[in-house]
């Protein structure tokens, strides 16, 4: 028996991180935010983005945090993976999150940001032809996700439903 040893690399809110070989990528407490993992299963490199908002065009900030928005974070994610040796044609994706935490009856567009985040992520992945192999999206629960670069499984934990692998 060998003991598996790996590092868990934490991905913060509006953040982007990479892992290779046996290491894991983990982000905690996804609500309306979406966790996007893109990886090359054979080369064993992976990147995880924790995106908060769909579109950087809505930003009024001077020092834009590129990792906050789906439209700016995901291109960096793909480019960096390629630089790290991933093969573009082999890239796959898994996504989780995009919940609506508060059931508010309001016309405020911010309150359905989870659904809009998911739309933006899927639109980008479709455009660059990266297939989504599995997803756990929408609903009204927070999620913590952890991706194993070793076996490409994404574990998704919620408070009420425990942990599942997708």
């Amino acid at each position, binding site marked *: 028996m060998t003991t598996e040893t790996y590092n868990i690399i934490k991905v*913060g*809110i509006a953040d982007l991180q990479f892992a290779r070989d046996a290491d894991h990528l983990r982000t*905690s407490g996804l*609500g309306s*935010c979406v966790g996007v993992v893109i990886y090359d299963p054979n080369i064993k490199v992976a990147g995880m983005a924790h995106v908060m908002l769909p579109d950087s065009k809505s930003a009024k*900030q001077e020092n834009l945090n590129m990792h906050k928005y789906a439209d700016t974070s995901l291109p960096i994610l793909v480019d960096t993976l390629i630089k790290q040796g991933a093969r573009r044609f082999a890239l796959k994706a898994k996504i989780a999150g995009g919940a609506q*935490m*508060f059931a508010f009856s309001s016309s405020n567009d911010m309150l359905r940001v989870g659904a809009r985040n998911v739309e933006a992520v899927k639109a980008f992945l479709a455009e660059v032809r990266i297939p989504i192999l599995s997803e756990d999206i929408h609903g009204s629960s*927070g999620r*913590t996700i952890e991706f194993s670069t070793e076996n490409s499984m994404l574990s998704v934990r919620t408070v009420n439903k425990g942990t599942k692998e997708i």
Partner: protein
Amino acid sequence: MAYFESLTQFQLDTLKEVGNIGSGNAATALSKMLNQKIDMYVPSVRVVNYDEMMELVGGPEELITAVFFRIEGEAPGNMFFILSPREANAFVRQLTGIEDFSVTDEDNNEMGLSALQEIGNILAGSYLSALSDFINILMQPSIPILTVDMAGAILAEGLLELSQVSDSAIVIDTMIDDHRDDTDPIKGHFFLLPDPDSFDKIFSKLGVSDQ
């Protein structure tokens, strides 16, 4: 335009003072409701970034009890009142006499949950009416929404408006002391997240806008 990162100590002290007025009102309301002496005070007002905000409540994966309000009126924004499940349970048990109440128990806790929502409502209402009297800007809380889930998932939702202009938020720490020997003061947090445009309105009314 100045956002949180550039708030002066004087502006923060002003917010803390308003916080103490508001929590004084809230304590009076709660004392009447519980029929015992309750004190509330604001030990500090801070500007924190997202990750610090998560750490304040135990990390993004920590289970928290949050009452969320949309602030409506002339200076709209978001507001949270946050307790740990343990503190929320103690509070509700005391208020309702339901000895086995637990926020995480899905059955038969409707009465307790609505009591908790009501506590949140009183506190937020008192705080906001103090603030709005003090600065003469109309602000009212929406219907409270109670959620028990991971801190990251809940708090990020309230940060969305703000996050388009800033990566920080204002935290008004609140201590609730029920003067009983067997219990520590309950530590609650109010997170006040004015929408970007509201911020300048509040400070110009306070007479402490940027020199």
